[in-house]
């Protein structure tokens, strides 16, 4: 197992390095005009713009810039934002934004798992009856209707009916309710859909029929066999959710004015904030690789049939 972990760790590091260097180099292919807002492009002459770029180190050879970034990284310096939040240390930005997004992410993930799994079990328990139809209706609604429509409806009308704030305010607990609900809607549907499917599959397997014929109580078969086996394929995705917790939701954070990381990468790319893009990409690459890695370890831990090594 130790050998496996070491091998996977090295592979993961290599993957992260390749992704990071590729993105770093691609960013340097972008046009120099992209570093300036339109107004500034119009109001400054080229000599002033080049002077600015040179002073920011952006005219240095890409390998020199890469070396400088890696060196600073090893000293714990992530650099400063270039265009989105000029001169603000990226570490400060992340310290401010990640906790907010993570708090919403964890809350919604928890709600998604609890309510999603409960709904999935309800659908199986009342298969082809009211519980199943209710769950299917919910899943269809969440997945088929463009999310902006119901998210906007919730923000405007639900907030009005229940007297809830329309935007997030840090010191007002009631302002957390609607964004957390909105963030959870998709994951509730996802967990319910797949748990139902996997449980129905397990229900029809021979070992379940055999256990019931042998006289095991249905409750025990459900709890110890069907649910336990159905949940295994879902477990693998739990660590990957780490990335979604940190990266946030562009739409919901924007709608509720949550000062988190949702949309930060998009904004940074749009504004050609190389420093910010490369740090976020690095962070996401590490989290993605870590998520997959932990997922593999977790599934091996919960399913004794799966081994990660040849031994």
């Amino acid at each position, binding site marked *: 197992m130790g050998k496996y972990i070491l091998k996977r760790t090295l592979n993961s590091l290599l993957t992260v390095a390749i992704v990071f260097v590729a993105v770093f180099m691609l960013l340097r292919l972008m*046009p*120099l*005009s*992209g570093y*300036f*807002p*339109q*107004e*500034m*492009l*119009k*109001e*400054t*002459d080229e*000599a*002033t713009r080049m*002077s*600015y770029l*040179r*002073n*920011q180190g952006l005219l240095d050879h890409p390998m020199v810039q890469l070396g400088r970034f890696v060196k600073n990284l090893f000293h714990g310096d992530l650099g*400063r934002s270039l265009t*989105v*939040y*000029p*001169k*603000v*240390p990226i570490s*400060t*930005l992340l310290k*401010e*934004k990640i906790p907010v997004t993570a708090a919403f992410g964890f809350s919604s993930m928890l709600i998604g798992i609890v309510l999603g799994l409960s709904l999935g079990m309800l659908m199986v328990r009342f298969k082809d009856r009211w519980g199943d139809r209710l769950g299917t209706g919910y899943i269809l609604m969440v997945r088929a209707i463009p999310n902006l429509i119901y998210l*906007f409806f919730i*923000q*405007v009308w639900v907030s*009005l009916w229940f007297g809830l*704030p*329309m*935007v*997030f*305010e*840090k010191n007002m607990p009631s302002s957390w309710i609607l964004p957390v609900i909105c963030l959870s809607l998709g994951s509730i549907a996802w967990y319910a859909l797949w748990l139902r499917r996997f449980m129905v599959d397990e229900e029809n397997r021979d070992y379940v029929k055999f256990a019931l014929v042998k006289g095991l109580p249905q409750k025990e078969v459900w709890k110890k066999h069907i649910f336990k086996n159905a949940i295994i394929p879902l477990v693998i995705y739990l660590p990957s959710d780490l990335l979604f917790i940190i990266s946030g939701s562009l739409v919901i954070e*924007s*709608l509720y*004015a949550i*000062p988190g990381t949702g949309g930060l990468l998009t*904004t940074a790319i749009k504004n050609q904030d190389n420093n910010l893009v490369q740090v976020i990409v690095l962070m996401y690459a590490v989290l993605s690789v870590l998520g997959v890695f932990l997922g593999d370890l977790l599934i091996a831990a919960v399913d004794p049939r799966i081994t990660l090594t040849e031994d």
Partner: protein
Amino acid sequence: MKRFIAILMTLIMAMSMTMTAQGEDLAAAANAIIESKTFERTYDTNFSSSIASFNYYSTNLAIVREIVSNCIDGLVEPDIYGVYVPSLAESWETNEDQTVWTFKIREGLKWVDHTGAETEYELTAQDFVDGIRYIGDPLNGAYSLRVVRNLIKGLYDYYWLLDDIDCGLVTDQNREDVVKQFDEMVGVKALDKYTVQYQLENSAPYFLSLLESSMLILPVEYEYAMALGEDFAVDNEHLLYCGAYYVSNFERDKAITLSANTHYWDYDKITLDTVEYQMIPDGTTSLEMFKRGMTDYTSVEAEAYDSLVGTEWEDNLLPTSHSFSTNYLWLDFAGENTEFKTFINNENFRKALLYSMDREVLAALREPVDPARILRNTINAEGAIYDSNGKDYTDYSPLKEIKETNFNNPELARQYMEAAIAELCDENGNIKGVEPATVDYLPVCSFDIDGKLPVTICYVGTDDEDEIIMAQLFKAMIEDSLGAENVDFQIQAFSGWTYGTVADPLNYDIYFDSLSTGYADPSGILTRVTTDGAENVGRYDVPEFDALIEKALAAKTFEERLQYFAEAEAYLCGNGFIIPFISSLRGYYMSYSIPYTSPLTLYGNTKYKGTLVMAEPITQEESAVLEAAYEVAREAALAGK
């Protein structure tokens, strides 16, 4: 409450003293409205874009400008009529040709920190010198330096010498030595502890307005800023304040609180204890929150306007008052499309374009209720620049005639088009000297031209829904007026539209942009659109215009200067080198603040000093009465300034 009454009485007296008999009635009505109100000490407003940082030298974001203008005072400030009055400077004087401006600074003022406590740093003339020192160093990355760098004596040479040293072009001078020579090289001096003097390269009768509009001339506590290095102004805790407010709370991308500065030199004039900003990312949410009393201000875009008509809020809808930004069509005189290039360099064709559009229809996209109020035929806005007699710059002839011309004249447009065709085409519709070719406007588009009529025109816009509708209107109007057999107007909605991908590399024939009057002088825009000007992205050649600009810059009096500028601008607009058509003004607003109680900051920086905020939103009727009284009083104030 006593302070409120005192302020109200001052307002009343100020208005009353300048009134005629009719004005007195209006003032009485306005006073009656104000006296009937109760006032709040907090104003809850909102913003929609990220606060990058508070470094006022390196950003031009509107929300940062607004916060800074409330937190860092300049030497002068406008009063409620837009007349400049003392701020950090108690008094000022200028020499005869207005190239040297000397300001006497108030004594005994201290910078305060983000808790509102006084620091050990005294505000002196040196802080204004150091502001220029800060922006003069290329390493500090000051934003939009052009105007100030070219105006203050020696600053241009100082900046570029440092830059040449930084990039190795100058090796026989040492950076530190040059920095030490700042005081000798650059024309800004602290004559004594409380007197600062600016020596300018050219006569600048508009200098006071530049002090209002440009954040580059604000003071800085240099020792403090240098000690912080790159951390200077990255948040509210890394900034010192000398204005009516300080930023007591800052949550990035979320909330900002301005608290009244109790050490402020003009503290008695502060009418709001706090101004709370919260981020509301879109207009719909902002409007909904306003209706629920969760914010004191909301803008109302044209599309939301209709939803409020007939509701209880209709009476609170007020039109936004002014915008000095002008939307215009920019034309490509040197692009690859030789069909368009041949025609656009022809005066008759430019005039055909000029008269081909119904600008009111275009304006209705932004202002469906009263489109005429946003029409604009000039580049510099009406109401932005006045001479010493209070005469508006756009009332100088021949610009006045351009301003008042109705350019919606399809018949005339067709006549000009036919004249252009007669000059540029043979009898078979072949455009003389133009061969079939493929025009490469990539990454925007590429298309074939055949060297025959109709002239292919490639209009490039963004993929914004409103802009696409506007482009379709351009197409319909131009093809209708000039004849679809004569022009083929093609629309390219380019999703990656940026200045760097479309305008700068000439990947267009026509595009839509804006220019803004930044201070009280036409040179702010007009010197940028000369043949060699940075803003001449269409690369036209206009020696007649250039000559008039030269004359304007060399004029002996401000009136003479404005006259030449007016002639130059009329030449440019009247001959269709640039086609301005509407102002950037859009929409309506609803607010709890009383109009005309804040300083009239013409160039974009809202100030809350003196702003009165009520317990209920202002109505149209109240606003109309206040406006009528205000206009009479302002006219008198401008005439007597």
